[in-house]
Structure formats: structure tokens, C-alpha cells
């Protein structure tokens, strides 16, 4: 059994605390917004100058001047503020966000990660990825455990161009939750139907098993969206 992309997002949302200031990258991370506990006040940051991104507007209610970093229309949450790029990147690079959730191509055992340029990609674009990576104290990576060719994405050394060195704190995949410890990667949770040795076999980098390692607890569906498959 594996988590769906929504399932990974759902599980990450459970770990974001009330009062958090969180940047969500494109891909799986942006789905996290759909699974936040409405009882917790969490501010979503958008690099183009929003703190407090709200849900997508209803059709016909779009404000042409209100987009989030993914370039889609958005609304504003209670308590939101708007600002320019200098203040936005002061937040990102100055350590003021509590979390950044980012997609990745690879994560290495030492917390290095690669997410901005697929090897061989013809036209590179970096955006705010490197600033977020060096600035946010809790970098959570959300990705599939294996490439679509079945190769491990948690590796000894990244082969794709690095985004930043040694900054990933936790990895959420469709199979496992892994902390980047100071000495080693630590398996915290794994999907039902798998076991730690099975996760190890799908992980190139060495994995330590946490003493309280347990199964990932995610429901089958949420609002009709499958979280497990």
C-alpha cells in the first residue's frame, strides 16, 4: 500500500502546527493547503508577496491582480498581508518562515537536495527555490520514494544539480517518513504492508530505524479523494 500524492499532502498537513508560517512549493506541496485542519490557524506564504493565501476563488470571482507563486488565482485568508519582493524574500531567507514544503528530484543522506533542474533540462529556471532552501528552518521534502523507473530518490549523493546543501529536515514519500538526523537518516514511519527492511531496500542511503518507528496513519479517503492506493 502506498500514499497517493494527496495522501502525502494530507500526512504533511497533520505535522504543521497552529501559528506556522509555511511556504508550499509546486506539485505535491501545494496540495497540502487542501488538507490543513480548519481548526488550526496557519499562514501560507507566497513568494510573490502574500502572507495568508486563502483558497481558490469561485469561478467568476477571480481578482486579476491576486495570484500566488504558482501563477493561479487565489484569495486572502483572515489576517493576510501583501508586500513586495524585498520583504517577501526577507521572510524566506531570514529564517522567518516556520516551514517550507518542497518537491525534490533527489535527497541525499546529509540533507542535500535537488529540485530545481532535472538533469539535461534545456532551459533552467530557479525562482525562489534556493532562497527558501537556505532560509526556512524546517525544510520538508514531499516526493515519491522511487523514480518512475524504480530507482531510489533518497541517495548517498545527489546526481541532479543541487538546490542547497544539508538543509532538508524531513522527507515524506508515498512509502515512508524519514528524518534527516545529524548522523544518519532515521525512518520514523512506513506504510502498512511494508516493513523497515523493505523501505531500506528501496533507499540507497543508509537508514536508521527509530525506536518508536510505526505505521503511517492516514485514512483511505478524504472528502472523496483517495489518500492510499
Amino acid at each position, binding site marked *: 500500500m502506498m500514499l497517493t500524492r494527496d495522501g502525502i499532502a494530507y500526512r504533511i498537513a497533520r505535522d504543521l502546527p497552529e501559528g506556522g508560517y509555511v511556504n508550499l*512549493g*509546486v506539485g505535491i506541496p501545494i496540495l497540502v493547503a487542501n488538507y490543513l485542519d480548519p481548526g488550526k490557524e496557519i499562514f501560507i506564504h*507566497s*513568494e*510573490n*508577496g*502574500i502572507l495568508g493565501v486563502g483558497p481558490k476563488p469561485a469561478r467568476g470571482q*477571480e*481578482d*486579476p*491582480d*491576486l*495570484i500566488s*507563486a*504558482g*501563477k*493561479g*488565482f487565489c484569495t486572502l485568508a483572515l489576517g493576510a498581508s*501583501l*508586500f*513586495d*519582493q*524585498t520583504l517577501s*524574500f526577507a521572510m*524566506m*531567507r531570514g529564517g522567518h518562515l516556520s516551514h517550507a514544503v*518542497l*518537491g525534490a528530484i533527489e535527497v541525499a543522506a546529509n540533507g*542535500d537536495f535537488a*529540485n*530545481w*533542474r532535472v538533469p539535461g533540462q*534545456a*532551459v*533552467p*529556471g*530557479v*525562482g*525562489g*527555490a*534556493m*532562497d527558501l*532552501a*537556505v*532560509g526556512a528552518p524546517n525544510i520538508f521534502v514531499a516526493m515519491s520514494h522511487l523514480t518512475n523507473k524504480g530507482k531510489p530518490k533518497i541517495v548517498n549523493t545527489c546526481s541532479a*544539480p*543541487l*538546490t*542547497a*546543501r544539508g538543509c532538508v529536515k524531513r522527507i515524506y514519500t508515498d512509502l515512508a517518513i524519514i528524518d534527516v538526523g545529524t548522523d544518519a537518516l532515521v525512518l520514523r514511519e512506513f506504510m502498512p504492508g511494508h516493513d523497515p527492511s523493505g523501505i531500506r531496500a528501496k533507499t540507497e542511503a543508509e537508514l536508521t530505524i527509530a525506536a518508536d518507528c510505526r505505521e503511517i496513519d492516514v485514512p483511505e479517503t478524504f472528502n472523496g479523494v483517495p489518500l492510499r492506493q
Partner: protein
Amino acid sequence: MIDKTLADCKQAVAPVFDGATVMFGGFGNVGMPGQLMEALLLQGTRDLTVISNGAGSGDFALAALFRERRVRKLIASFPAPTSKHFRECYLKGEVELELVPQGTLVDRIRAGGSGLGGFYAPAGVGTELAAGKETRVINGREYLFELPLHADFVFLKAHRGDRFGNLCYRGTMRNFNMVMATAGKLVVAEVEEIVPAGSFSPESVHTPGIFVDHLVQVARHPGLADKPSEETAP
């Protein structure tokens, strides 16, 4: 009486010369000075060095400057996969790209606009974007040395302006516009409405008129009026 208003975009872009360095505000389509870009396109100015977050999308404004091969070099953080005209120029080797992490790009512009000689940024350390850059360890952390950026011409988009050049933005229009306003020899804003002097409360002005040389009232570019682009950013 100070009056920084110009009649139209054509007049606003007239001083731009071949080979000039030009900054354009905007993130995605929001805050992009689309009408000024179109006027520059019509004028036929070439060999531009463009400083901008992206490379435009679709077939108009910034994207059209690439389509018509008017840009020699782009300094940007995110030429999106949807920037098809840039992509074509780039792959044919017809445009040079200086890729800069977005926060570093912002601060290079800020340094240019605020008289700093350069700074040490953490973004890009240990990556391929550090190639050829001086590094320095400060308080135990490694940084890259970054130089200021300044432009011959800066083109902005704001919501409202007055004859003094004071500007107000709405929504996410501020993005690069506010910092770029500080970093040009000649700074021109396109605004949707020029309001009478005294309409702005002094506390609500976003870009003080000192930074703005000219402004022109013009309807929003049709490509930017009703829907944002389909780009995605990391």
C-alpha cells in the same frame, strides 16, 4: 507645477536606445507593464539586456520581445517552461541567460537602487549557480558575493499614480515593481488611473514619486486583463 504625466506609451519608450539595459516589473502577468512592452516592441529597439523575474508567456508583451529577437541577454530567476519564445531563442543560442536565485536578484536590484556596492547572499552556495563566484565564510556560514544591478530604463506597472509620480499597487502587483523603481536612470510607470494630487494619504503611498520620472495612464493590456498566465514556478 510638477507634472510627470506623459501622453502615451510611445512617448514613454522613445528614449530607449539599442543596447540599453531595461528592467520590467511583474511576477507572472501581475504587475507586468504590458502596454509599455508593446510600445517598445513597436518602436523596434534591439539588443536589449532585460532584467525581469521571468521571460513572459503567451505571445505578447515580454514574450513578444523574444519572439522578435529584440533581447540580447536576459537576467532572470525563472524563465518558465511556458516561455516558448524565450525558449526558442535560448536553444538557438540567440539570447544569453544569466540565471539568478530570485531573492538574490531582488537584492542585487535593491543594492543598485540604494547605493550599496554588493553583498553576500546565502542562496546558491554549493550549487552550479555558484560557478565563478567569489565565496566567503562569515560567522561560520558560506556566502556568495553578489554585485548590484542597475538599468538605463525601468518600466513599472501600478494601479494608480499622481502627477508627482507617487504610485499605489493593488493585490500582488507590488512584487518587483517597488524595488525596481529605485534602480533605474529613467523610470516610467504605466498606471490604470492618474488621480488628482492629494488623493493618496501619505501613509498609503507605496512608491514615492522621487523614484518615478514619468507615468502614463493606459488601459490594462488585454492579455493581462482577465486571466493570469498558465505558468508554474518552483
